[in-house]
């Protein structure tokens, strides 16, 4: 890119910024443990900024602190929308350290469960105070009608936050997007595989449309 065009480009970006009302919206990525929230956050961050957000793991409660990635600029049809993405710990009403003892020593399992409970509390706090929109991630291979999902969606609705439901893991044979659409017909459901990068165009179109 030539110096002049580069300069013109950054000037117009600055003025764009000046004229958008406020800071980028903070979009919380919520959902039950292991749904693929961090995998999604990492994919979005890598696609638009080059870095990752956090570690992914098949062991639930890998994320035990909310992590924010600021100023993720997503380009759509020549327009760009800037959001902060917040990867949150998976929400649940119970944490049993014995679920982790197959994977690690008892001490570590107990520590993981303590941190997990703090993380869930923090995620709830962010939801009540600090997010402007929600991406609710579900594993399409699992039954979406659980008490936690119903409660969380109810909480999000009661706060009038814009919400998109992401039916993740569509690469799995057991995946059923319809089951999720039927469970939450009042919201838009977007199918994807965060791990394989399937259907990411539709993902970004919807993020731009809902949160731009």
């Amino acid at each position: 890119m030539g110096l002049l065009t580069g300069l013109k480009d950054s000037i117009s970006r600055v003025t764009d910024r000046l004229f958008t009302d406020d800071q980028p919206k903070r979009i919380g990525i919520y959902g039950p443990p292991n749904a693929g929230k961090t995998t999604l956050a990492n994919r979005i961050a890598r696609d638009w900024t080059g870095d990752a957000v956090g570690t992914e793991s098949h062991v639930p409660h890998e994320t035990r602190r909310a992590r924010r990635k600021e100023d993720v600029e997503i380009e759509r049809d020549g327009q760009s929308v800037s959001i902060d993405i917040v990867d949150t710990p998976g929400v649940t009403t119970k944490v049993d350290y014995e679920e982790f003892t197959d994977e690690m020593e008892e001490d570590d399992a107990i520590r993981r469960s303590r941190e997990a409970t703090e993380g869930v509390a923090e995620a709830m706090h962010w939801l009540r105070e600090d997010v402007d929109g929600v991406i609710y991630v579900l594993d399409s291979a699992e039954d979406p009608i659980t008490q936690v999902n119903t409660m969380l969606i109810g909480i999000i609705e009661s706060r009038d936050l814009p919400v998109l439901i992401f039916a993740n893991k569509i690469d799995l044979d057991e995946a059923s997007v319809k089951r999720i659409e039927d469970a939450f017909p009042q919201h838009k459901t977007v199918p994807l595989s965060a791990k394989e990068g399937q259907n990411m165009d539709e993902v970004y179109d919807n993020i731009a449309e809902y949160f731009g």
Partner: protein
Amino acid sequence: MPKATNPDDPNGDDGVQIDLISGERMDSLASTEKIRMILDGVHDGNIVILEEGLTPDEESKLIEMTMAEISPDAGFNGIEIETYPKSETKDSSLLGRLMGSNESAAKLTVIGPANQIETLHKDETLISALVSRN
């Protein structure tokens, strides 16, 4: 509080206590008091039934307070919570059908200690019997 016996237990003395809390009683309490009352019951090993359920905000605080009280040492690993009717579309349980015919929008909410979830499921008929007396 009614003390119900576990129908699967022939001796009948290893009963499960059910705290049935009326909407009226709940209305007189502040949110924090409601949540305290629920968690106190659950810590005692009881199953708490709320006639009128909680608001979304209270549910969110219930999750937060439950997390703060989970303790591997004390053997408390959280709560199991179910509301009836479960959802408009999928509603096949006895209790769900029972409550589905109810005009009011209030959801009946059943909360128990997570490590006794077996009891919660096993006692669904018992819970529905108790509730239908109201």
